[in-house]
């Protein structure tokens, strides 16, 4: 990066913009998990509610990791506005399916930033994002495993399925 701003910033400005969009995506995911936790909490689905409260916290932690990374590297992290959070769900299974879709979107978005960082020779961001790629792989695996439990226990009472789901 051979511009005047290289003296102030370690990361590439285009990558910084994408990282700021990622913060918004993670915060939206956090808010979405909170809505799911509330749905489960109201229906006394104890394991699922704990799982989604934890997920909401984790997504916020991811956002904060990116937030501090941008500022630590001379950029400007933007606090996002979170709008249009869905609080209306049809079933517990639908909630987990939505969660998997959400995780896939987050993964794809991280891949996009990773590719851009590589294209722009932004090695600092590239290394930073490696943790997120492993983390997303784990998150997707967790969601898929839960959906498998629904397939295996099809027809069983919802409370019984919930008892066999992870709390975190």
């Amino acid at each position, binding site marked *: 990066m051979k*511009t005047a701003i290289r003296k102030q910033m370690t990361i590439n400005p285009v990558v910084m913009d994408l990282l700021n969009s990622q913060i918004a995506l993670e915060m939206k995911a956090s808010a979405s998990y909170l809505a799911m936790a509330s749905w489960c909490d109201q229906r006394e689905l104890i394991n699922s509610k704990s799982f989604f409260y934890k997920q909401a916290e984790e997504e916020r932690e991811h956002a904060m990791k990116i937030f501090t990374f941008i500022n630590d590297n001379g950029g400007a992290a933007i606090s996002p506005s979170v709008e249009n959070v869905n609080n209306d769900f049809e079933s517990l299974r639908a909630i987990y399916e939505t969660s998997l879709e959400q995780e896939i979107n987050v993964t794809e978005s991280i891949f996009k930033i990773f590719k851009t960082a590589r294209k722009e020779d932004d090695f600092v961001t590239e290394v930073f994002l490696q943790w997120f790629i492993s983390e997303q792989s784990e998150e997707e695996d967790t969601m898929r495993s839960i959906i498998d439990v629904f397939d295996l226990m099809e027809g069983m009472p919802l409370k019984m399925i919930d008892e066999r789901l992870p709390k975190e």
Partner: protein
Amino acid sequence: MNVDVSVEYEIDLKEITFCKYELKTVNKRITLSFPQLLQLRNNVIQLTKPESLYDIIDTENFVLLFAADKQHLIYLDIPQLLNLRNTIDSFFYSFKSVSI
């Protein structure tokens, strides 16, 4: 051919010192620190998104933009706003060396 001829731009952005920048607009010169420059860049990017531009065209047809921690207010019509966006973009653009 004299390549050192200075060209006067309507909107221009220059690095004055290590952490001071100067934005020249139609009627004022504004000194910016680097965080202020990043904030201005973000505001300009938001304002020049297609949906924001349509909104501006549909309403007042100009924008009032705060700069340097709200110490300055800049009046810009659409061409000037786009000009400012290009100026900031080229200031942040990473030039890569090309072997010929």
